[in-house]
């Protein structure tokens, strides 16, 4: 079995083969959130999505939102900063658990 074939992204809608009304609702929601400028511009939304795609490590989304970032006018420097934000958040989320570790160390008399 192959996993994460780039061409599979085009087949996303096939997930609606069953329970199509739920996929329709999803696509409608997805389009409403990401498809146009709102309080955030399409470019800002694309950069958020790109960062999240890296944090969640979704290759489909990385392909799609690298293109979407370029097509909404973001440049590679902005895109790289966006994934650093994701990486820094991931690091921070790991490290902040160190407080939990220290709570445990205190309970065990090691701190």
């Amino acid at each position, binding site marked *: 079995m192959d996993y994460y074939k780039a061409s599979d992204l085009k087949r996303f809608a096939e997930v609606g083969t069953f329970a199509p009304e739920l996929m329709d609702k999803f696509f409608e929601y997805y389009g409403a959130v990401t498809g146009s400028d709102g309080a955030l*511009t*399409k*470019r800002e939304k694309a950069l958020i999505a790109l960062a999240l795609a890296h944090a969640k490590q979704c290759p489909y989304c990385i392909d799609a939102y690298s*293109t979407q970032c*370029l*097509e*909404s*006018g973001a*440049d*590679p*420097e902005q895109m790289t900063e966006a994934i650093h934000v994701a990486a820094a958040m991931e690091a921070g989320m790991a490290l902040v658990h160190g407080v939990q570790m220290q709570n445990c160390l205190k309970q065990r008399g090691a701190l």
Partner: protein
Amino acid sequence: MSSTFRRFITEHDVALAASRVGLMQVNITRLCNQACAHCHVAAGPNRREMMARETIERCLEVLGEHPEITTLDITGGAPELHPDFRELVSRARELDRHVMVRHNLTVTLERHPVTRASLAYLPAFFAEQGVEIVSSLPHYQPYLTDRQRGSGAFERSIASMRLLNEVGYGRPGSGLELNLVHNPVGPYLPADQCSLERDYHASLERSHGVVFNRLFALTNMPVARFAEHLEALGQAEEYRDRLSAACNPAAAANVMCRNMISVGYDGTLYDCDFNQMLDLAIEPEEPATIFTFDIDRLSERDIRFGDHCFGCTAGSGSSCGGATT
């Protein structure tokens, strides 16, 4: 020509009849000081095609006979490298035509690839003639421009823009328009023209101290060098799918071929510069040339469409004047 594009416009009931010819675009040479990765003309320093003197004379004669053709758009290659370039500009201006020059900026700072003559006179000449300058600057980020136009092209372009700014181009109230052209570095659609224009203005003024008027965002056309580039990357089909999937009937309605005529260096007439590069001369008169120019027939012609036309109708649309929506 039967094509997916024609099916699309038929299905969406988009009427793309030719209208009265109001703009003449002349491609006077394929010689260029640069060899940009995405050039649909595949222009470069080794090309030698030049419009003959008699053909230039005939273009001017046609302009003189047809006051409704209000604009002469001069392109190439680098049109400034043609020996009769200055005469063509000044005589079209004497006819009181609006003259646009597709000027690649760097040519001012380099020697003529064949004669080695200096072209440093260009900014003063452009200003004296009051021509509109349209210049490719693919991105405000130097590395993205250099990827398309060659190493150092961004810096040389900025230096050339400074010279144009010094004679008044891009300055408010000068009446001298310097418009820039953005196109994507690879197989994707250009971003929204207005938002890119804001970014260009902010970045170029803040980081480089240069100013311009408007930005035109163009889609890369899968023709000539860019088509070869896509084939080499294995992305030709994906890009064509991208363009056709993004086809926008509103953008299609305003495509430039409807009111222009494109003249090749040998005098052959085309609907646009892209058809010119694809050898799709105007039908049904084969070949229609500037020497048999008949504005009534041309204004009622059937435009020749092909699947490359999706390049002008995708997303916000694309023309020599940027987005069409």
